[in-house]
């Protein structure tokens, strides 16, 4: 079975690479495991505090600070996954240079395996969110199943960008710095900490095309408001994700012939 030049063996390889990287980062030390859980929670707690208590932002439909926290977290957790995925994929080839130089395998599997590692903060964050929801009495409904296609498309999208990042980083190592700044910038322009109405009208219109928005808002729709996510937005994201992968793979495969220059 072949898909975009990958076969089932490659699929298994991606899973194995993912398992290895989880083992390396988190299971290697006791601290690793603790950090995997604490880090996302810490970030969540911090942003909740700043925006919930200090700035005292309010969201229509979320009158209490606790409700605000839930609202914030439901948008922030997917963002954490995005940030993690982007930095992991960008570094994936350089980090795996040992393998690239010495083992016969399709190096384009590396960004895919790296994007999977975003699952860790995602699960931690979502777990925490669900606990809070249950405390709030807001139990999940059948709309929850839409999380699955959301996650899948989000993953595909991030892999697509990841392919470009991973290949380019081999030559321009500083890209990782630039990326982390850019993504933070984007985060502030995306209605994660504030409702969309607070943005100027013009920007509200283009926010539809903000992929970060399309990767965060649907979660809120499905988990908090128990309604279907915006279909057009979903299709938009899916199409872009597919295109990114097609062109990303082309780009990566062309560039990988030159990797040995820099590794």
């Amino acid at each position, binding site marked *: 079975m072949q898909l975009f030049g990958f076969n089932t063996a490659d699929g298994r390889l991606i899973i194995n690479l993912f398992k*290895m990287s989880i083992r390396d980062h988190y299971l*290697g030390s006791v601290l690793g495991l603790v950090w995997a859980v604490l880090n996302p929670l810490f970030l969540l707690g911090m942003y909740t505090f700043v925006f919930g208590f200090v700035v005292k932002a309010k969201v229509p439909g979320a009158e209490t600070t606790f409700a605000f926290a839930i609202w914030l977290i439901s948008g922030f957790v997917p963002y954490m996954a995005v940030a993690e995925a982007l930095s992991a994929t960008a570094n994936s080839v350089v980090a795996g240079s040992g393998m690239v130089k010495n*083992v*016969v395998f399709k190096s384009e599997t590396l960004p895919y395996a790296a994007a999977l590692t975003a699952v860790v903060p995602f699960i931690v964050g979502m777990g925490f969110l669900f606990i809070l929801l249950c405390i709030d009495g807001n139990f999940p409904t059948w709309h929850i199943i839409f999380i699955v296609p959301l996650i899948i498309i989000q993953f595909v999208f991030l892999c697509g960008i990841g392919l470009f990042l991973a290949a380019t980083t081999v030559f321009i190592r500083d890209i990782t710095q630039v990326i982390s700044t850019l993504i933070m910038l984007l985060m502030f322009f995306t209605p994660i900490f504030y409702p969309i109405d607070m943005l100027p009208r013009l920007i509200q219109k283009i926010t539809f095309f903000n992929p970060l928005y399309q990767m965060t808002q649907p979660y809120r729709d499905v988990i908090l408001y128990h309604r279907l996510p915006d279909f057009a937005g979903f299709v938009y994201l899916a199409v872009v994700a597919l295109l990114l992968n097609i062109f990303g793979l082309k780009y990566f495969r062309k560039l990988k012939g030159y990797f040995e220059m820099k590794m």
Partner: protein
Amino acid sequence: MSEQIDIELSSVRKEFLIGSFSDVVRDMFGISVNLKRYRALDNVSFKVPRGELLGVLGRNGAGKSTLLRVAGGIYSPDSGKVSLRTNPTALLEMGLYGNQHLTGRKFCEVFFAFRDVPKKEVPKLVEDVREFTELDEYFDEPIHTYSAGMNARLMFGVITAVSAEIVLLDEILSVGDQHFQGKSYKRLMNMISHGSSGILATHDWFTATRLCSKIVILDRGSVEFMGSSLEAVRKYLNLAPTLTRRVFFQNREQLIREPVTIIPGTPFDLVFEVESTIDTPFSIRIALEIPRIAMVVLISNEHIVSCGQGRYRISLHIPKFPIKQRECFLSLFIHEPRRPGEAATREGYDQISWTSGDSISLIHEDTSFVSTGIIHRRLAWRQLKAMEPCT
């Protein structure tokens, strides 16, 4: 006779671009003017049949590692063709697969999982690796505590645990002590006799003569020579120019003319003359060598001659010639006396040996000797209940 060819390279050329990212982009779009390239391999062709290991000798930077990677599919050639009968197993560099926290045992398990080895076979293979590598208690210690030698043992053990039909080895055998090197040869020889083939890049020409039937010499990316191992080693060592000949053999043609017949177990004598043009002492050293099996039988420590310039008659007397192999080489070395602690070298004033192109070949044709075993020794057997010795 149709021979099965396992590895074939035809006119392979591999170049590396030297430059920055913008150069890469330009090259991708075909705007390749003024781009610097380093030619790592140039017009390399050879075939490796089933059951043979090809040796690759060459100085650092000659392209050995690149050649292995091209053969293994890690690099694609810029022109020419590479074809392998089946997927190769390559051991190219140490310390792969990241995580240094893994214990030796875990590393094996991860590796085998990676290679899709069926779960139920894994414990047996892991035990096999443990036994081969002799890592004992270190097997359950993290890899970062391992020395370079232990690392090499583990890698080699793991790679060769799963049967490999084509192996590509880069200088693996010289890491690790003699004990382990011996085990590695044996394992490799075993694999080869079972039909494995491969390419071995190494500096260790002595081992290469034993493991490889043919050797390729690479020089700056091109094949400088390809042929039988003994010839290749001679060419590679290129010893003749390094011999200063301030003390030299007289009448060497007479010494090396035809093979000398010997009878194992009987006395062997050789007389030759040496001329010295220096006043300082010099040493004479002798060895019997069987390069085909990478064996050296030393038959003398140095004999130091210190009577100044002049001509000497040197007499060699071996009371019982020790080797009962059909053919072996007698090598004679003349060099400066070694300082304490210095290891032997093949350079010096003069030498007659198979590595410098001339050698004294000793053969025996007496089939009454049992053909197995290399050393001839008469042992005294005793049965402490009646037994008749019959000489």
